[in-house]
């Protein structure tokens, strides 16, 4: 995989929040965490650009395509906002990043069913988890510019998740039994991918010193717990309400080709 330079210093320096005094060890941990977030958020923009292209190709209404393009722009803005925190912590909003991978085309199914898989994974799974995580982190922060910045990001993520659930709700009822079965199979793969992605970024057995939550540093065990709670208490029941066998898909996520 090739890499490229992501340089958001110009935008980020315009957006720097006031951070205040922070002890050096904590500052470094916070700086690297927010740099990671900058990369992660900015890297999500091509995902939404790709979704927009696939939605358009599938003949979905133009306003939904436009909404998806707006979400891509929002992810770029989030990258700059996270970079602004890096700058406020004395770092530089600049990093070497992997070049974006294309979205899977799912050529084994019709375009609408294919893009539904991707929307399910991106919006209904990942972004719904993100809403819970960001809201929890925000609530642990004291009032201030950093919390305001996080609130702004959260507002957009709410929109991204809602988009996915709306789209799912409009497409799934028209699927025949075979298509639902195929979606259930994909859901198992998507759950496995979600879990792997989340856990690889949430250290399991670490706690930061008191006050770390003020800078967006999370308690790994608590974050993992919230992730699983979001899956079990929100995502799975809601997908079941849409007629998808989500509980079985989650339980089978570690067994290949079993669902």
């Amino acid at each position, binding site marked *: 995989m090739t890499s490229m330079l992501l340089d958001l210093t110009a935008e980020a320096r315009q957006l720097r929040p006031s951070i205040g005094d922070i002890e050096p060890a904590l500052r470094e941990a916070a700086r690297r965490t927010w740099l990671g977030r900058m990369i992660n958020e900015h890297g999500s923009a091509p995902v939404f650009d790709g979704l927009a292209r696939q939605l358009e190709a599938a003949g979905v209404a133009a306003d939904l395509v436009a909404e998806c393009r707006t979400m891509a722009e929002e992810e770029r803005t989030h990258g700059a906002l996270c970079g602004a925190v890096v700058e406020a912590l004395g770092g530089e909003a600049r990093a070497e990043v992997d070049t974006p991978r294309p979205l899977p085309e799912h050529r084994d199914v019709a375009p609408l069913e294919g893009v539904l898989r991707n929307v399910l994974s991106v919006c*209904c799974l990942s972004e719904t988890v993100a809403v819970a995580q960001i809201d929890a982190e925000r609530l642990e922060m004291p009032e201030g510019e950093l919390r305001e910045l996080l609130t702004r990001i959260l507002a957009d993520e709410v929109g991204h998740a809602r988009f996915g659930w709306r789209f799912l709700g409009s497409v799934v009822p028209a699927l025949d039994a075979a298509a639902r079965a195929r979606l259930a199979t994909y859901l198992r*793969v998507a759950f496995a991918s979600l879990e792997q992605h989340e856990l690889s970024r949430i250290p399991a057995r*670490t706690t930061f010193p008191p006050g770390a939550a003020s800078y967006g540093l999370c308690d790994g065990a608590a974050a993992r717990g919230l992730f699983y709670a979001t899956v079990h208490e929100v995502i799975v029941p809601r997908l079941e309400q849409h007629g998808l066998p989500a509980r079985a898909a989650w339980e089978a996520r570690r067994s290949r080709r079993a669902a």
Partner: protein
Amino acid sequence: MTRFEIHRRALRAAAAVSLTLGLAACASNVVVGPDSDGDEPNTTASSGGGSDSSTVASTASAGGDGSTSVATGAGGAGGAAAGPCADVMHDWQAYAACCDENGWAVEAGCVAWGPPVPPSLEMEEVA
């Protein structure tokens, strides 16, 4: 606000965004049950009958200040750390080394927000 209450509110926000008008009214609520924080094996699903049935209203909004009438019970998975990486948080180099040992992608951030590229079925077949 305790971490328990924070997580309950965060789950309500997530439940609110997942609500769509197309669902039948009798099934349009996701019930956020008692705090089940912790690693997956001990986490129980709750889709309609938790003992602390705090039903998510369709009008709930993420970050809203809706009341949370849950009992306090802070603790859970947010408790004390254990294991070899438990005491390294004041020393960034030690923390980074610990992450390396455990294969944690700390450079990607403590919590991954932005969605990654979705998987394909073919990816599973070659894994």
